[in-house]
């Protein structure tokens, strides 16, 4: 009597392929540097710069609001007049600086470097950008890095 052998799907090549893909994806993650969660209404300008973004306080500027680390500190509609200061931004960044300096007093590994990332929408007016930079400077954040998307 003829014996029926059960048909079996060879899984080994598929598993090998999966392993390769997973290794590739993990490598890709390691090489892509900092990742950022951006609000949907924020589109970054493009640039040919290739300097890697380092971790720092993130100041988001859109056409509607200015936020620090996701906390809304000012409305763009209110930014007018000759006074370039943004009180909400200055207050938030000053608190952040004081907190970092207090930690730094107890832990020498933590240093306040005055670095901030300016994450601005490409359609934001230059006036808003200068106000944000000026206010950041007043709060002690003098090293502003503009975050851009690398041109392909």
């Amino acid at each position: 009597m003829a014996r029926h052998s059960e048909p079996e799907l060879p899984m080994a090549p598929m598993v090998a392929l999966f392993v390769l893909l997973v290794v590739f994806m993990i490598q890709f993650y390691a090489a892509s540097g900092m990742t950022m969660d951006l609000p949907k209404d924020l589109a970054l300008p493009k640039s040919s710069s290739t300097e890697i973004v380092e971790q720092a306080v993130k100041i988001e500027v859109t056409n509607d609001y200015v936020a620090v680390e996701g906390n809304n500190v000012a409305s763009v509609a209110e930014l007018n007049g000759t006074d370039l200061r943004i009180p909400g931004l200055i207050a938030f960044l000053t608190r952040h600086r004081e907190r970092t300096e207090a930690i730094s007093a107890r832990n020498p590994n933590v240093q306040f470097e005055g670095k901030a990332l300016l994450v601005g929408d490409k359609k934001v007016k230059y006036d808003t950008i200068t106000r944000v930079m000026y206010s950041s400077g007043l709060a002690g954040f003098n090293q502003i890095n503009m975050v851009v998307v690398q041109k392909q």
Partner: protein
Amino acid sequence: MSSPVSKGGLLKRSKQGEKRLFDVAMNITPMTDVMASILCFLLVSATYVQYAKMDANLPSTGASAALADTPEDEQEKLELQLLLTKSKKIMVDRGNGLEELEVAEGDTFNWAKLDEVLKEIRQQYPDHKDAILSADPDIEYEFVVAAMDVCIANKISNVSLAASAVKGAGE
């Protein structure tokens, strides 16, 4: 369909002393499941956008004061300033007044012309790295970044952003 297993065998001696082949195949289904889950997670959460940074400085008064104290022969001869106007004109000041660059066709700035001018300046002053960029308050941020991009491409890496120019300046 039967469970996906990799075929294999192990030779063992039975109670009667004869050698028999036992099927000891490893079940790779859980591993495949885990791999597929990890792969899906990585693909969904992967960011294909590469971010970069550009250094932005506000012009410091301290720098100007320090420059004023240095002997004249040590001072840089060039004080390069760029101005972007609302009507998409680029003005360049090499220390001898504002010079208006050719306007590009369409609703954009003439970056090619700026590139040409900066290349000229680089030839004349190979060590010069500073520029002050100013723009109309209503200019969009992307144009400021584009202007900085052209400067950096021409090795003018120390671009300071001046506070917004007076509305309508250079019109």
